């Protein structure tokens, strides 16, 4: 008798197995999100929005009300829903291209307005769905389809520090963290706290998840884990970056 690993209750069985590539980190992030939704008992309150790119494959992932939007536009759609109906818990799910490139103005503005929504951004260092081009998060020297000789930081800059930026521009009450699919338990904790922050009405909540893309990285299992655990963390520090409540004053 085979034992299936437990799936979160809010996952939609009819759409499983899911559509992501083997070894993709999206499934792990969505598992952490699913567990957080289950533990908080908010399946009937959540409105889930997904972006364009690989994240759109989650459009029928959960038994929660879901809308798949345009590239970069999930943040304003969820903002619009939350403003019109503050009773829902809005989750905007996107990749690094959607959040840090084409939708950067929306992320910045939602953060500065302290929108009571939760943004979950999956960082896999490149554009997956379109075939592996350079993203704002591509590591220096990393080869992609549009940086075939490696990312040249002189020409294209350094990887975007998304959570650090969001932490810098959000008012008090925001929650900002960076987790990783290499530590799903911790990631689930961050996502749960982000959702609790929205439930408490404190402010904007943002979790970046370091994730994997063996298809476009062209890595085997061992190299994939090495990249996410050792290479990505050189630039992307895992942990909580901003938590609600007044900061302690200097000298106290």
């Amino acid at each position: 008798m085979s034992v299936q690993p437990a799936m979160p209750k809010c996952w939609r069985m009819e759409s499983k197995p899911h559509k992501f590539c083997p070894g993709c980190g999206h499934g792990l992030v969505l598992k952490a999100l699913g567990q957080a939704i289950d533990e908080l008992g908010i399946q009937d309150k959540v409105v889930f929005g997904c972006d364009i790119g690989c994240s759109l494959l989650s459009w029928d992932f959960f038994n929660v009300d879901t809308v798949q939007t345009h590239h970069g536009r999930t943040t304003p759609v969820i903002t619009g829903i939350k403003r019109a109906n503050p009773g829902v818990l809005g989750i905007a799910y996107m990749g690094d291209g959607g959040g840090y490139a084409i939708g950067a103005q929306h992320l910045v503005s939602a953060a500065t307005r302290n929108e009571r929504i939760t943004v979950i951004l999956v960082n896999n260092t490149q554009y997956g769905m379109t075939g592996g081009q350079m993203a704002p998060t591509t590591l220096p020297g990393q080869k992609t389809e549009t940086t075939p000789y490696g990312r040249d930081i002189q020409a294209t800059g350094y990887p975007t520090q998304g959570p650090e930026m969001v932490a810098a521009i959000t008012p008090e009450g925001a929650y900002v963290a960076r987790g990783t699919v290499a530590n799903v338990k911790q990631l689930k904790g961050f996502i749960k706290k982000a959702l609790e922050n929205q439930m408490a009405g404190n402010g904007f909540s943002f979790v970046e998840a370091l994730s994997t893309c063996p298809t476009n990285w062209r890595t085997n299992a061992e190299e994939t884990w090495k990249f996410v655990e050792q290479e990505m963390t050189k630039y992307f520090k895992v942990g909580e970056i901003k938590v609600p409540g007044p900061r302690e004053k200097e000298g106290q």
Partner: protein
Amino acid sequence: MPEKPIQGEKRVFMTGNEVVAWAALAAGAEIMYGYPITPQNEIMHYWTRLMPKYDRKFLQTEDELSAGFTTVGGVLAGRRAFTATAGPGNTLMQEPMSMAEAMRLPVVVVVQQRGGPSTATVIYSQQEVTMTTLGGNGEGLRVVYSTATHQELFDYTIKAFNTAWKYRFPTFVLGDGYQAKMRESLTFYDPAERGIEMVPTEPYVGKPGMPGVDRPPTHLRNTYNVEEELYEVLKDYLADYAKAAPEIAEYEAFDTEDAELVVVSHGVVSRAGKAAVKELREAGYKVGYFRPITLRPLPVDQLREVANKAGQLLVVESANGQLDRLVKEAAYGCSAEILPMFKPGVGITAEEVVARVKEIKG
């Protein structure tokens, strides 16, 4: 429960932008999302001044992409939501409106046309016809009302919410900078007192009950795996649109029965067209007047009837043939000769139309 914004009927004298804000209030619009752009700004100004009294909401967004997509969100939440824009803002608005078309979302957008291309003028034009009727990547599954007077701005802003929610196509009220900024008399009314029932709204997301248990979850998408899957969806949408088109299409016409030449115009220019036709009739010219009120869908049958009866159509517009292209497509194969009177980005007077007709008729 806040009191109704308008009780009884009331004669007022105000700018078109103020009229739109009042009409949206009267229609029961619950939330406006917007980004500043001239000449629509005062719609937001009046809305934000009036809304606390009537328990409505507003969000100023970071750009028109966001204004459009947050309005989409407001509609998804089941609210009567709207935005207003113009010119380059209308260009950005086409992206969210293509999503509204793809998901049949009853978004209402008020457009106050300004000069184009690019920044051009903040004042006036009829150069946003092509974009407002057929913008975005798609098939133009939308409704566009082109208003000519402040009374119509009031009437059709209210109507736009009902058309949108009845047929579930994004709906535009197409005004212009002249209508936005000039003052004019009109009659305010509460729609209910005129027997106008507001079409009820309903949420797409955030509905009661446990999704997957008490009810199926809402799973809205605009992405499809294969061509045929998209084609099946579009076939239904296009059939719905074709069925609704004759119910939605509106026009205004007179003196077309025996007319040798019919002046075709829309929006504020149709006021010049109307005055010119009356003057020319008095002077003995056999001319008629035809004005599509809906630019999308066009009143195709009525236009074709006129285009088969009159010898000539004179298309008059403050653009370089944007209405003309719509008219020619609708009147394809009809017998009338179609003549242009185009002044892109500039207003047109009755005197100019009279002179042009006399030039044609000799």
